[in-house]
């Protein structure tokens, strides 16, 4: 029974991390129709920027996280405005450009910081311990921040003019533009928001695990799977899918082992997509 509870707690922790990560990816995929291959790289950038702000500038961790995600957001804004926006209608071009940017970012990190993981710890240690299970305080903090971020994104998308404009552009770009909504002003902002979310996840999660230049690839795969499973452009769907993936991964790994656990997860996702090809919650927005 204790193992069952422990696996459940691990699954919820994983789900919270995945939800935060997938939010940004679903914004890009659902709203802009951009498959952002650099999403994982921004996760790593968030981690390394935070590490640099703590180690080199001596900032306290919360301030370092804020500085890091703002810088990452600025980087994402400029990248979208200068590189992606001119070719935003060309799926292949945006795919290749974001893939190239992923390679540039991860190689730059490798060159600047080296291949070895630096010493980078979450500032809060300790855990709530029970009979056969434990919940690190760091995981609870990430869970809380995930909940806040999900709520904030939902409010932005459904209660602000910015969010309404983005949804209109996603529904029908030509009509929205004719109504006076400027994609060139809004899309870079949307990309920046997505980048901030990826970087925030990296800033919070990498001190709990390890910081290394190569982390972005598996993170991207997970984000992709969650967004497809949840339904393109569905924030609620991505959130629920993140927890589904986290819990399935935890239980299958604990009870079946690392190899069989990964296989079980992919089989379950495959079955769900066969039954519901548009994902658990279809799409609230239709990308152009």
């Amino acid at each position, binding site marked *: 029974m204790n*193992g069952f509870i422990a*696996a459940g707690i691990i699954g919820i922790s994983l789900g919270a991390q995945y939800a935060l990560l997938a939010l940004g990816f679903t914004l890009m995929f659902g709203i802009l129709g951009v498959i952002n291959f650099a999403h994982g790289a921004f996760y790593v950038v968030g981690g390394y920027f935070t590490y640099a702000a703590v180690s080199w500038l001596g900032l306290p961790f919360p301030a370092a996280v804020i500085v890091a995600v703002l810088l990452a957001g600025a980087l994402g804004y400029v990248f979208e405005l200068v590189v992606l926006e001119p070719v935003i209608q060309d799926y292949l071009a945006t795919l290749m450009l974001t893939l190239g940017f992923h390679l540039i970012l991860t190689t730059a990190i490798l060159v600047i910081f*080296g291949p070895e993981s630096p*010493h980078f710890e979450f500032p809060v240690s300790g855990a709530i311990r029970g009979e056969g299970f*434990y919940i690190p305080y760091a995981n609870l903090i990430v869970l809380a921040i995930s909940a806040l971020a999900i709520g904030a994104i939902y409010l932005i998308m459904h209660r602000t003019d910015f969010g309404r404009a983005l949804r209109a552009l996603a529904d029908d770009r030509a009509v929205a533009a004719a109504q006076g909504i400027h994609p060139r002003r809004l899309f870079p902002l949307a990309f920046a928001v997505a980048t901030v979310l990826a970087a925030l996840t990296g800033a919070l999660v990498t001190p709990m695990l390890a910081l290394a230049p190569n982390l972005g690839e598996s993170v991207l795969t997970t984000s992709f799977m969650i967004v497809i499973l949840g339904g393109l452009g569905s924030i609620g769907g991505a959130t629920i899918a993140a927890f589904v993936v986290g819990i399935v991964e935890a239980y299958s790994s*604990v009870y079946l082992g690392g190899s069989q656990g990964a296989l079980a997860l992919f089989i379950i996702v495959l079955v769900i997509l066969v039954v519901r090809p548009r994902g658990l919650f279809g799409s609230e927005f239709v990308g152009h």
Partner: protein
Amino acid sequence: MRNKYYLAFPVAAAIAVLSLSVASPARAADCELKMGVMGPLSGGAAAWGDAMRLGAEFAAAEANQKGGLKIGADTCHVTVLPYDSKYTVEGAAAGGNYFASQGVNFIIGPVGSPEATGVKPVAERNGQITFNSAYAKDAIGPQWPLAFHQVVGPGTWASPVVAEAKKHFDIKSVVVVAPNDQGGTDIASVDADAYRAQGIEASEEYYQRGTTNFAPIVARMLSKNPDVIDTASSPPADAATMAKQLRQAGFTGPLARLGGPGTAQILNAVGGMKNLGNFYWAEIVPIDDPKVKSLWDDYKKVMGKAAPNNSLFATSVAASRLVLKAISKAGTQKDVNAVRDALRSLPVVDPNLGKGAWTGKETYGIAQEMGFPVGMGMIKDGKNLGVRAIDVTTK
């Protein structure tokens, strides 16, 4: 109206002039010897690939400092070409063919078992000598006469390391954890057998390479109540995360690493020796030996920067030096079989690693393994007991 390309010619000319002016300075050498170095230069095992690359570059720099390598009547400048084989079979196979297209007949590396599997048949076809550091069960063999091995495998040193660990720690059961590909299974299974041979109950856990959060794997391992958890050949970044999460989960038993080097990263991740507590590991070379240690100082003097904190660097230097010596002895860089014969005939001696022997006959069926003494490191109750040498050169 001016053609929009009117600036192209003067810009191109300027670039060409600048390139020529910052190209390698004019060399006294008559010719060029290209030496390839292959390994993961990105990804979780990049620390190993980087160590391999820097070792080869150092050996080349040593030769060039003396005016070049004497090959027959010529003196050749040694150039090192790196290739990122990404710790994959296909990466290494592509690397072998890339090197062939560049006229490279000698490859230091690759690093890992999947890479060795990929490059060996390609290199045999292309006529290239390789010098891998894989711990695979078939790292070298009589069917690949051009494949050499620069490290002694776990089949040789795992038993003496486990026997020594048993003297210091109360070990009745162990979980050996590694990735679920050849780079993990070949080593973890050998390690587990070494534990079993010492009367220790051993189980193996495998995970998907690319995993970043090991919390579920940690929970699974802890459910078996092991006395020791051995990270075997898990890449350094993975082992570091596992160690961190194991200590966080309350596991206080010794950790071990009977696989490639990675102690520095594990220490970094858990926050030092006090937090790590009890840990034992196999080192490729006895890094506390003053002569071995001096290699890192020599690197800094010659290259002007710090050497990598990874002992694979030392065997890469030794392997590169041997290959260069063999090419010089054979008097040719084109006749690879002559260089192979010269290499086999050379004594395994290195100014830093000391005296070794060509081993591997018993394990692989061919004595083409550069066998130097290995090391066993131990941290006990948060105190570093150092790395002691274990002589395995008789096997």
